[in-house]
Protein backbone atom coordinates (compact mmCIF):
# COMPACT_ATOMS: atom_id res chain seq x y z
CA UNK A 1 0.00 0.00 0.00
CA UNK A 2 2.67 2.50 1.03
CA UNK A 3 4.78 1.42 -1.94
CA UNK A 4 1.95 2.25 -4.28
CA UNK A 5 1.48 5.61 -2.59
CA UNK A 6 5.11 6.59 -2.96
CA UNK A 7 5.01 5.67 -6.67
CA UNK A 8 1.96 7.87 -7.04
CA UNK A 9 3.73 10.69 -5.24
CA UNK A 10 6.65 10.41 -7.63
CA UNK A 11 4.67 10.54 -10.87
CA UNK A 12 1.34 12.24 -10.17
CA UNK A 13 0.66 15.79 -9.18
CA UNK A 14 -1.33 15.96 -5.96
CA UNK A 15 -4.64 17.78 -6.18
CA UNK A 16 -3.59 20.56 -3.83
CA UNK A 17 -0.33 21.21 -5.70
CA UNK A 18 0.83 24.81 -5.59
CA UNK A 19 3.69 25.99 -7.73
CA UNK A 20 4.36 28.94 -5.43
CA UNK A 21 5.29 26.81 -2.46
CA UNK A 22 8.25 24.98 -3.93
CA UNK A 23 9.24 22.51 -1.30
CA UNK A 24 12.46 20.53 -1.31
CA UNK A 25 10.81 17.21 -2.01
CA UNK A 26 8.85 18.78 -4.89
CA UNK A 27 12.10 19.96 -6.47
CA UNK A 28 13.49 16.47 -6.12
CA UNK A 29 10.41 14.86 -7.62
CA UNK A 30 10.43 17.32 -10.52
CA UNK A 31 14.12 16.72 -11.26
CA UNK A 32 13.56 12.98 -11.43
CA UNK A 33 10.71 13.48 -13.86
CA UNK A 34 12.67 15.94 -15.99
CA UNK A 35 15.51 13.44 -16.13
CA UNK A 36 13.16 10.63 -17.16
CA UNK A 37 11.62 12.72 -19.95
CA UNK A 38 15.14 13.64 -21.07
CA UNK A 39 16.21 9.98 -21.22
CA UNK A 40 13.05 9.10 -23.13
CA UNK A 41 13.62 11.82 -25.72
CA UNK A 42 17.31 10.92 -26.08
CA UNK A 43 16.42 7.30 -26.65
CA UNK A 44 13.95 8.32 -29.33
CA UNK A 45 16.54 10.51 -31.06
CA UNK A 46 19.20 7.85 -30.78
CA UNK A 47 16.84 5.32 -32.33
CA UNK A 48 16.04 7.70 -35.19
CA UNK A 49 19.66 8.47 -35.95
CA UNK A 50 20.80 4.86 -35.65
CA UNK A 51 18.30 3.89 -38.36
CA UNK A 52 19.69 6.71 -40.51
CA UNK A 53 23.25 5.48 -40.05
CA UNK A 54 24.42 9.07 -40.23
CA UNK A 55 28.06 9.97 -39.62
CA UNK A 56 28.41 13.36 -37.96
CA UNK A 57 31.22 15.54 -39.30
CA UNK A 58 31.14 18.52 -36.96
CA UNK A 59 34.59 19.77 -38.04
CA UNK A 60 33.23 20.85 -41.45
CA UNK A 61 30.65 23.06 -39.84
CA UNK A 62 33.13 24.34 -37.26
CA UNK A 63 35.18 25.67 -40.15
CA UNK A 64 32.23 27.89 -41.17
CA UNK A 65 31.39 29.02 -37.64
CA UNK A 66 31.99 32.71 -38.43
CA UNK A 67 29.31 32.58 -41.16
CA UNK A 68 26.88 31.00 -38.73
CA UNK A 69 27.59 33.61 -36.05
CA UNK A 70 27.23 36.45 -38.54
CA UNK A 71 23.93 35.00 -39.69
CA UNK A 72 22.78 34.68 -36.10
CA UNK A 73 23.64 38.34 -35.43
CA UNK A 74 21.89 39.41 -38.63
CA UNK A 75 18.73 37.61 -37.53
CA UNK A 76 18.85 39.51 -34.24
CA UNK A 77 19.35 42.85 -36.02
CA UNK A 78 16.51 42.17 -38.47
CA UNK A 79 14.14 40.98 -35.72
CA UNK A 80 14.77 43.94 -33.43
CA UNK A 81 14.50 46.52 -36.21
CA UNK A 82 11.33 44.89 -37.51
CA UNK A 83 9.87 44.77 -34.01
CA UNK A 84 10.41 48.52 -33.56
CA UNK A 85 8.87 49.39 -36.90
CA UNK A 86 6.01 46.93 -36.54
CA UNK A 87 5.05 48.38 -33.15
CA UNK A 88 4.62 51.76 -34.85
CA UNK A 89 2.58 50.18 -37.66
CA UNK A 90 0.57 48.16 -35.13
CA UNK A 91 -0.32 51.23 -33.07
CA UNK A 92 -1.28 53.20 -36.16
CA UNK A 93 -3.45 50.53 -37.75
CA UNK A 94 -4.81 49.32 -34.42
CA UNK A 95 -6.13 52.82 -33.70
CA UNK A 96 -7.07 53.46 -37.34
CA UNK A 97 -9.68 50.72 -37.03
CA UNK A 98 -11.48 52.92 -34.52
CA UNK A 99 -11.10 56.05 -36.63
CA UNK A 100 -14.09 58.11 -37.73
CA UNK A 101 -12.61 58.36 -41.22
CA UNK A 102 -14.17 55.59 -43.30
CA UNK A 103 -11.29 55.25 -45.75
CA UNK A 104 -8.73 54.86 -42.99
CA UNK A 105 -10.82 52.18 -41.30
CA UNK A 106 -11.41 50.28 -44.53
CA UNK A 107 -7.76 50.51 -45.53
CA UNK A 108 -6.52 49.15 -42.21
CA UNK A 109 -9.09 46.35 -42.32
CA UNK A 110 -7.90 45.32 -45.80
CA UNK A 111 -4.26 45.53 -44.72
CA UNK A 112 -4.82 43.36 -41.67
CA UNK A 113 -6.95 40.74 -43.42
CA UNK A 114 -4.66 40.54 -46.46
CA UNK A 115 -1.51 40.11 -44.39
CA UNK A 116 -3.00 37.71 -41.86
CA UNK A 117 -4.71 35.67 -44.54
CA UNK A 118 -1.78 35.03 -46.87
CA UNK A 119 1.47 33.11 -46.34
CA UNK A 120 4.52 35.16 -45.41
CA UNK A 121 6.44 33.43 -48.20
CA UNK A 122 4.08 34.86 -50.81
CA UNK A 123 4.27 38.30 -49.22
CA UNK A 124 8.05 38.25 -49.30
CA UNK A 125 8.13 37.31 -52.97
CA UNK A 126 5.53 39.86 -54.03
CA UNK A 127 7.02 42.68 -51.95
CA UNK A 128 10.56 42.01 -53.02
CA UNK A 129 10.07 41.33 -56.72
CA UNK A 130 7.16 43.66 -57.41
CA UNK A 131 6.80 46.47 -54.89
CA UNK A 132 10.43 46.99 -53.87
CA UNK A 133 11.41 46.81 -57.52
CA UNK A 134 8.82 49.39 -58.52
CA UNK A 135 9.92 51.69 -55.72
CA UNK A 136 13.54 51.32 -56.75
CA UNK A 137 14.42 49.86 -53.35
CA UNK A 138 17.66 47.99 -53.98
CA UNK A 139 18.92 47.24 -50.50
CA UNK A 140 17.55 43.78 -49.76
CA UNK A 141 18.16 44.14 -46.03
CA UNK A 142 16.02 47.25 -45.82
CA UNK A 143 13.41 45.46 -47.94
CA UNK A 144 13.57 42.45 -45.61
CA UNK A 145 13.07 44.58 -42.50
CA UNK A 146 10.16 46.39 -44.19
CA UNK A 147 8.49 43.12 -45.16
CA UNK A 148 8.81 41.66 -41.68
CA UNK A 149 7.51 44.91 -40.14
CA UNK A 150 4.48 45.01 -42.42
CA UNK A 151 3.81 41.33 -41.70
CA UNK A 152 4.19 41.60 -37.94
CA UNK A 153 2.45 45.01 -37.84
CA UNK A 154 -0.82 43.44 -38.97
CA UNK A 155 -0.79 41.02 -36.03
CA UNK A 156 0.21 43.77 -33.61
CA UNK A 157 -2.60 45.97 -34.91
CA UNK A 158 -5.09 43.31 -33.84
CA UNK A 159 -3.38 42.91 -30.45
CA UNK A 160 -3.48 46.67 -29.86
CA UNK A 161 -7.07 47.04 -31.06
CA UNK A 162 -8.14 44.29 -28.66
CA UNK A 163 -6.12 45.97 -25.90
CA UNK A 164 -7.80 49.33 -26.44
CA UNK A 165 -11.23 47.73 -26.63
CA UNK A 166 -10.61 45.91 -23.36
CA UNK A 167 -10.65 49.27 -21.55
CA UNK A 168 -14.24 49.45 -20.33
CA UNK A 169 -16.59 52.09 -21.69
CA UNK A 170 -17.29 53.30 -18.14
CA UNK A 171 -13.68 54.41 -17.87
CA UNK A 172 -13.91 56.39 -21.09
CA UNK A 173 -17.15 57.87 -19.79
CA UNK A 174 -15.55 58.75 -16.46
CA UNK A 175 -12.66 60.40 -18.27
CA UNK A 176 -15.15 62.53 -20.20
CA UNK A 177 -17.04 63.37 -17.03
CA UNK A 178 -13.95 64.69 -15.23
CA UNK A 179 -13.24 66.89 -18.23
CA UNK A 180 -10.38 65.14 -20.00
CA UNK A 181 -10.21 65.74 -23.74
CA UNK A 182 -10.13 62.77 -26.10
CA UNK A 183 -6.39 63.07 -26.52
CA UNK A 184 -5.84 63.27 -22.75
CA UNK A 185 -8.10 60.26 -22.25
CA UNK A 186 -5.88 58.18 -24.54
CA UNK A 187 -2.69 59.50 -23.01
CA UNK A 188 -3.52 59.22 -19.31
CA UNK A 189 -6.19 56.52 -19.15
CA UNK A 190 -6.15 54.20 -22.16
CA UNK A 191 -2.49 53.82 -23.15
CA UNK A 192 -0.99 53.21 -19.69
CA UNK A 193 -3.40 50.30 -19.25
CA UNK A 194 -3.11 48.99 -22.80
CA UNK A 195 0.67 48.78 -22.48
CA UNK A 196 0.58 46.41 -19.52
CA UNK A 197 -2.15 44.35 -21.16
CA UNK A 198 -0.45 43.95 -24.54
CA UNK A 199 3.07 43.30 -23.24
CA UNK A 200 2.65 39.50 -22.98
CA UNK A 201 1.17 39.04 -26.49
CA UNK A 202 3.74 41.53 -27.78
CA UNK A 203 6.58 39.40 -26.43
CA UNK A 204 4.99 36.34 -28.04
CA UNK A 205 4.78 38.20 -31.34
CA UNK A 206 8.49 39.01 -31.05
CA UNK A 207 9.31 35.31 -30.72
CA UNK A 208 7.25 34.58 -33.87
CA UNK A 209 9.02 37.39 -35.67
CA UNK A 210 12.41 35.83 -34.94
CA UNK A 211 11.35 32.47 -36.32
CA UNK A 212 9.45 33.90 -39.29
CA UNK A 213 12.45 35.96 -40.36
CA UNK A 214 14.03 32.67 -41.45
CA UNK A 215 11.89 32.89 -44.60
CA UNK A 216 13.87 35.95 -45.68
CA UNK A 217 16.58 33.49 -46.72
CA UNK A 218 14.66 32.95 -49.98
CA UNK A 219 15.50 36.48 -51.13
CA UNK A 220 19.16 35.92 -50.28
CA UNK A 221 19.30 37.89 -47.07
CA UNK A 222 22.26 36.49 -45.15
CA UNK A 223 20.52 35.78 -41.92
CA UNK A 224 20.82 32.71 -39.72
CA UNK A 225 18.87 30.26 -41.90
CA UNK A 226 20.64 31.23 -45.10
CA UNK A 227 24.00 30.85 -43.33
CA UNK A 228 23.04 27.29 -42.36
CA UNK A 229 21.86 26.54 -45.89
CA UNK A 230 25.15 27.77 -47.31
CA UNK A 231 27.16 25.68 -44.89
CA UNK A 232 25.07 22.70 -45.87
CA UNK A 233 25.58 23.40 -49.57
CA UNK A 234 29.34 23.66 -49.11
CA UNK A 235 29.86 20.70 -46.83
CA UNK A 236 26.90 18.37 -47.47
CA UNK A 237 26.64 18.13 -43.69
CA UNK A 238 22.91 18.69 -43.44
CA UNK A 239 22.25 17.83 -39.82
CA UNK A 240 25.45 19.46 -38.57
CA UNK A 241 24.21 22.69 -40.16
CA UNK A 242 20.57 22.54 -39.14
CA UNK A 243 20.88 21.30 -35.56
CA UNK A 244 22.90 24.38 -34.51
CA UNK A 245 20.30 26.42 -36.40
CA UNK A 246 17.47 25.01 -34.31
CA UNK A 247 19.48 25.52 -31.11
CA UNK A 248 20.30 29.09 -32.13
CA UNK A 249 16.61 29.95 -32.58
CA UNK A 250 15.79 28.33 -29.25
CA UNK A 251 18.47 30.47 -27.58
CA UNK A 252 16.53 33.51 -28.76
CA UNK A 253 12.96 32.34 -28.27
CA UNK A 254 13.20 30.52 -24.93
CA UNK A 255 14.15 33.64 -22.92
CA UNK A 256 11.28 35.50 -24.60
CA UNK A 257 8.90 32.68 -23.78
CA UNK A 258 10.06 32.82 -20.16
CA UNK A 259 9.61 36.58 -20.13
CA UNK A 260 6.09 36.26 -21.60
CA UNK A 261 5.14 33.86 -18.84
CA UNK A 262 6.39 36.25 -16.18
CA UNK A 263 4.61 39.22 -17.71
CA UNK A 264 1.37 37.24 -17.89
CA UNK A 265 1.63 36.29 -14.24
CA UNK A 266 2.43 39.83 -13.17
CA UNK A 267 -0.53 41.18 -15.11
CA UNK A 268 -2.82 38.56 -13.57
CA UNK A 269 -1.87 39.71 -10.08
CA UNK A 270 -2.66 43.28 -11.02
CA UNK A 271 -6.27 42.68 -11.91
Amino acid at each position, binding site marked *: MSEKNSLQALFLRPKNWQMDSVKKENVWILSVNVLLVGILLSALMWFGFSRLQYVFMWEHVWYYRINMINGFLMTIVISISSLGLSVLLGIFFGLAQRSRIHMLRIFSRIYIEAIRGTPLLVQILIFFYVIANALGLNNRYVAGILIMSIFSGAYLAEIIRAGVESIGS*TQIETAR*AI*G*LTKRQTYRFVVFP*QVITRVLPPLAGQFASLIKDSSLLSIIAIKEFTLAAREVNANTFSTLESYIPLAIGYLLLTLPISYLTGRLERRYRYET
Partner: protein
Amino acid sequence: MRLNILDMTKEFGNHRVLDSVSLYLEDVRSLVLIGPSGGGKTTFLRILAGLEPITSGEIMVNDHRLSCSEEKLLEYRKHIGMVYQAYNLFPHLSALENIILPLTRVHGMTKRDAEDHARSLLKRFHLEEHAAKRPVALSGGQQQRIAICRAVAIKPEFLLLDEPTSALDPEYTSEVLDLIRELHEEGMDLILVTHEMGFAHSAADYVLFISDGGISAQGSPAEIFEQSENHRVSRFLDKVLKYTK
Protein backbone atom coordinates in the same frame (compact mmCIF):
# COMPACT_ATOMS: atom_id res chain seq x y z
CA MET B 1 -28.79 75.66 -7.83
CA ARG B 2 -31.12 76.82 -10.54
CA LEU B 3 -32.57 74.67 -13.31
CA ASN B 4 -34.55 75.97 -16.24
CA ILE B 5 -35.58 73.34 -18.75
CA LEU B 6 -37.83 74.15 -21.66
CA ASP B 7 -39.36 71.54 -23.94
CA MET B 8 -36.37 69.21 -23.74
CA THR B 9 -36.46 66.13 -25.96
CA LYS B 10 -33.86 63.42 -26.24
CA GLU B 11 -33.86 60.69 -28.87
CA PHE B 12 -31.51 57.79 -29.45
CA GLY B 13 -32.06 56.95 -33.10
CA ASN B 14 -35.81 56.58 -33.40
CA HIS B 15 -36.31 55.93 -29.73
CA ARG B 16 -37.56 58.93 -27.77
CA VAL B 17 -36.24 58.64 -24.21
CA LEU B 18 -37.36 62.03 -22.92
CA ASP B 19 -40.36 63.73 -24.45
CA SER B 20 -40.65 67.54 -24.20
CA VAL B 21 -39.77 67.90 -20.56
CA SER B 22 -40.09 71.32 -18.95
CA LEU B 23 -39.04 72.24 -15.44
CA TYR B 24 -38.23 75.37 -13.50
CA LEU B 25 -36.54 75.10 -10.11
CA GLU B 26 -34.80 77.72 -8.05
CA ASP B 27 -32.82 77.47 -4.83
CA VAL B 28 -32.95 73.70 -4.73
CA ARG B 29 -30.06 72.32 -2.78
CA SER B 30 -30.65 68.66 -3.35
CA LEU B 31 -32.71 67.27 -6.15
CA VAL B 32 -33.50 63.57 -6.12
CA LEU B 33 -34.61 61.62 -9.17
CA ILE B 34 -36.57 58.42 -8.60
CA GLY B 35 -38.54 56.17 -10.87
CA PRO B 36 -38.60 52.80 -12.59
CA SER B 37 -35.67 51.51 -14.65
CA GLY B 38 -35.80 52.56 -18.26
CA GLY B 39 -37.95 55.55 -17.39
CA GLY B 40 -35.30 58.04 -18.47
CA LYS B 41 -33.83 59.21 -15.16
CA THR B 42 -30.26 58.20 -15.96
CA THR B 43 -30.50 59.90 -19.36
CA PHE B 44 -31.87 62.98 -17.61
CA LEU B 45 -28.91 62.99 -15.24
CA ARG B 46 -26.42 62.45 -18.07
CA ILE B 47 -27.87 65.42 -19.91
CA LEU B 48 -27.50 67.58 -16.81
CA ALA B 49 -23.92 66.28 -16.52
CA GLY B 50 -23.17 67.54 -20.02
CA LEU B 51 -22.42 64.02 -21.24
CA GLU B 52 -25.30 63.77 -23.66
CA PRO B 53 -26.43 66.52 -26.04
CA ILE B 54 -30.19 66.98 -26.26
CA THR B 55 -32.14 66.56 -29.48
CA SER B 56 -34.23 69.70 -29.05
CA GLY B 57 -35.26 72.20 -26.42
CA GLU B 58 -33.30 74.39 -24.06
CA ILE B 59 -31.57 73.92 -20.71
CA MET B 60 -30.05 76.43 -18.37
CA VAL B 61 -28.15 75.09 -15.36
CA ASN B 62 -27.13 77.93 -13.03
CA ASP B 63 -25.52 80.32 -15.50
CA HIS B 64 -24.63 77.69 -18.10
CA ARG B 65 -26.63 77.20 -21.24
CA LEU B 66 -26.11 73.57 -22.31
CA SER B 67 -25.25 73.53 -25.96
CA CYS B 68 -25.01 70.67 -28.41
CA SER B 69 -21.34 71.09 -29.22
CA GLU B 70 -18.97 68.68 -27.50
CA GLU B 71 -16.39 71.43 -26.99
CA LYS B 72 -18.78 73.61 -25.03
CA LEU B 73 -20.10 70.64 -23.07
CA LEU B 74 -16.51 69.72 -22.17
CA GLU B 75 -16.04 73.24 -20.83
CA TYR B 76 -19.29 72.91 -18.86
CA ARG B 77 -18.28 69.54 -17.40
CA LYS B 78 -15.26 71.17 -15.79
CA HIS B 79 -17.65 72.95 -13.42
CA ILE B 80 -19.50 69.90 -12.14
CA GLY B 81 -18.70 66.65 -10.39
CA MET B 82 -20.07 63.31 -11.51
CA VAL B 83 -20.12 59.96 -9.71
CA TYR B 84 -21.28 56.72 -11.31
CA GLN B 85 -22.69 53.47 -9.95
CA ALA B 86 -19.35 51.71 -9.97
CA TYR B 87 -15.93 51.46 -11.56
CA ASN B 88 -15.39 55.18 -11.30
CA LEU B 89 -11.72 54.96 -10.47
CA PHE B 90 -9.01 54.34 -13.01
CA PRO B 91 -7.53 50.94 -12.10
CA HIS B 92 -3.94 51.81 -13.05
CA LEU B 93 -3.77 54.79 -10.72
CA SER B 94 -3.63 54.91 -6.93
CA ALA B 95 -6.43 56.59 -5.00
CA LEU B 96 -4.33 59.72 -4.66
CA GLU B 97 -3.38 59.77 -8.35
CA ASN B 98 -7.02 59.35 -9.30
CA ILE B 99 -7.87 62.54 -7.44
CA ILE B 100 -4.83 64.41 -8.75
CA LEU B 101 -5.35 63.59 -12.44
CA PRO B 102 -8.21 66.03 -13.17
CA LEU B 103 -6.69 68.69 -10.91
CA THR B 104 -3.42 68.86 -12.81
CA ARG B 105 -4.58 67.96 -16.31
CA VAL B 106 -7.92 69.74 -16.46
CA HIS B 107 -7.78 72.47 -13.84
CA GLY B 108 -4.17 73.52 -14.27
CA MET B 109 -3.02 73.03 -10.68
CA THR B 110 0.64 72.31 -10.01
CA LYS B 111 1.44 68.79 -8.98
CA ARG B 112 2.36 69.85 -5.46
CA ASP B 113 -0.79 71.90 -4.88
CA ALA B 114 -2.94 69.12 -6.30
CA GLU B 115 -1.32 66.55 -4.04
CA ASP B 116 -1.72 68.73 -0.93
CA HIS B 117 -5.34 69.35 -1.79
CA ALA B 118 -6.01 65.65 -2.48
CA ARG B 119 -4.32 64.56 0.74
CA SER B 120 -6.27 67.00 2.85
CA LEU B 121 -9.51 65.75 1.29
CA LEU B 122 -8.60 62.12 1.94
CA LYS B 123 -7.66 62.98 5.49
CA ARG B 124 -10.87 64.89 6.03
CA PHE B 125 -12.90 61.80 5.08
CA HIS B 126 -10.64 59.36 6.96
CA LEU B 127 -9.29 57.79 3.81
CA GLU B 128 -5.66 58.88 4.09
CA GLU B 129 -4.39 55.37 4.80
CA HIS B 130 -5.66 54.32 1.36
CA ALA B 131 -3.93 57.10 -0.60
CA ALA B 132 -1.31 54.86 -2.17
CA LYS B 133 -3.60 51.89 -2.87
CA ARG B 134 -4.88 50.92 -6.27
CA PRO B 135 -8.65 50.43 -6.64
CA VAL B 136 -8.30 46.61 -6.62
CA ALA B 137 -7.00 46.81 -3.07
CA LEU B 138 -10.01 48.80 -1.88
CA SER B 139 -13.54 47.77 -0.94
CA GLY B 140 -16.45 48.96 -3.06
CA GLY B 141 -17.41 51.49 -0.41
CA GLN B 142 -13.89 52.89 -0.18
CA GLN B 143 -13.66 53.13 -3.97
CA GLN B 144 -16.92 55.00 -4.13
CA ARG B 145 -15.91 57.41 -1.36
CA ILE B 146 -12.64 58.14 -3.15
CA ALA B 147 -14.56 58.67 -6.39
CA ILE B 148 -16.70 61.22 -4.55
CA CYS B 149 -13.53 62.89 -3.22
CA ARG B 150 -12.28 63.14 -6.79
CA ALA B 151 -15.54 64.70 -7.91
CA VAL B 152 -15.57 67.32 -5.15
CA ALA B 153 -11.82 68.03 -5.32
CA ILE B 154 -12.38 70.29 -8.31
CA LYS B 155 -14.79 72.42 -6.20
CA PRO B 156 -17.75 71.83 -8.50
CA GLU B 157 -20.90 73.97 -8.55
CA PHE B 158 -22.84 70.83 -7.77
CA LEU B 159 -22.46 67.09 -7.59
CA LEU B 160 -24.29 64.58 -9.79
CA LEU B 161 -24.62 61.03 -8.50
CA ASP B 162 -26.02 58.19 -10.59
CA GLU B 163 -27.18 55.44 -8.21
CA PRO B 164 -23.95 55.74 -6.22
CA THR B 165 -24.80 52.81 -3.94
CA SER B 166 -26.61 50.43 -6.29
CA ALA B 167 -23.57 48.35 -7.16
CA LEU B 168 -22.28 48.13 -3.60
CA ASP B 169 -22.61 45.36 -1.07
CA PRO B 170 -25.29 46.49 1.39
CA GLU B 171 -22.78 46.80 4.23
CA TYR B 172 -20.99 49.63 2.39
CA THR B 173 -24.10 51.60 1.49
CA SER B 174 -24.27 53.63 4.68
CA GLU B 175 -20.64 54.80 4.63
CA VAL B 176 -21.16 56.21 1.15
CA LEU B 177 -24.49 57.81 2.02
CA ASP B 178 -22.94 59.28 5.19
CA LEU B 179 -20.27 60.94 3.10
CA ILE B 180 -22.84 62.34 0.67
CA ARG B 181 -24.90 63.68 3.56
CA GLU B 182 -21.84 65.26 5.14
CA LEU B 183 -20.96 67.03 1.91
CA HIS B 184 -24.51 68.22 1.53
CA GLU B 185 -24.58 69.60 5.04
CA GLU B 186 -21.46 71.56 4.24
CA GLY B 187 -23.21 73.25 1.37
CA MET B 188 -22.59 71.04 -1.64
CA ASP B 189 -25.57 71.00 -4.00
CA LEU B 190 -26.66 67.56 -5.18
CA ILE B 191 -28.57 65.95 -7.98
CA LEU B 192 -29.00 62.32 -7.14
CA VAL B 193 -30.53 59.30 -8.83
CA THR B 194 -31.17 56.65 -6.21
CA HIS B 195 -33.21 53.68 -5.12
CA GLU B 196 -32.44 54.39 -1.46
CA MET B 197 -35.85 55.80 -0.65
CA GLY B 198 -35.03 56.43 3.00
CA PHE B 199 -32.08 58.56 2.04
CA ALA B 200 -34.04 60.29 -0.70
CA HIS B 201 -36.78 61.13 1.77
CA SER B 202 -34.47 62.62 4.37
CA ALA B 203 -31.92 64.37 2.15
CA ALA B 204 -33.98 65.73 -0.72
CA ASP B 205 -35.39 69.23 -1.02
CA TYR B 206 -37.28 68.31 -4.09
CA VAL B 207 -38.12 64.99 -5.76
CA LEU B 208 -38.78 64.27 -9.41
CA PHE B 209 -40.54 61.04 -10.31
CA ILE B 210 -39.44 60.17 -13.81
CA SER B 211 -41.19 57.53 -15.86
CA ASP B 212 -42.33 57.02 -19.44
CA GLY B 213 -40.01 59.70 -20.78
CA GLY B 214 -41.15 62.55 -18.61
CA ILE B 215 -41.64 63.96 -15.13
CA SER B 216 -44.74 62.11 -13.93
CA ALA B 217 -44.79 63.72 -10.52
CA GLN B 218 -42.77 66.27 -8.60
CA GLY B 219 -42.75 67.94 -5.25
CA SER B 220 -41.27 67.94 -1.80
CA PRO B 221 -40.34 64.56 -0.32
CA ALA B 222 -43.44 64.67 1.86
CA GLU B 223 -45.67 65.31 -1.15
CA ILE B 224 -44.15 62.47 -3.14
CA PHE B 225 -43.60 59.86 -0.46
CA GLU B 226 -46.61 60.41 1.76
CA GLN B 227 -49.37 62.19 -0.06
CA SER B 228 -48.94 61.26 -3.67
CA GLU B 229 -52.18 60.54 -5.44
CA ASN B 230 -50.41 59.64 -8.63
CA HIS B 231 -51.03 55.92 -9.05
CA ARG B 232 -47.76 55.37 -10.90
CA VAL B 233 -45.84 56.83 -7.99
CA SER B 234 -47.69 54.88 -5.35
CA ARG B 235 -47.41 51.63 -7.30
CA PHE B 236 -43.67 52.18 -7.73
CA LEU B 237 -43.20 53.01 -4.04
CA ASP B 238 -45.22 49.99 -2.99
CA LYS B 239 -42.92 47.75 -4.97
CA VAL B 240 -39.69 49.38 -3.87
CA LEU B 241 -40.64 49.57 -0.22
CA LYS B 242 -42.36 46.19 -0.01
CA TYR B 243 -39.75 44.53 2.17
CA THR B 244 -38.44 47.54 4.05
CA LYS B 245 -41.34 47.93 6.46
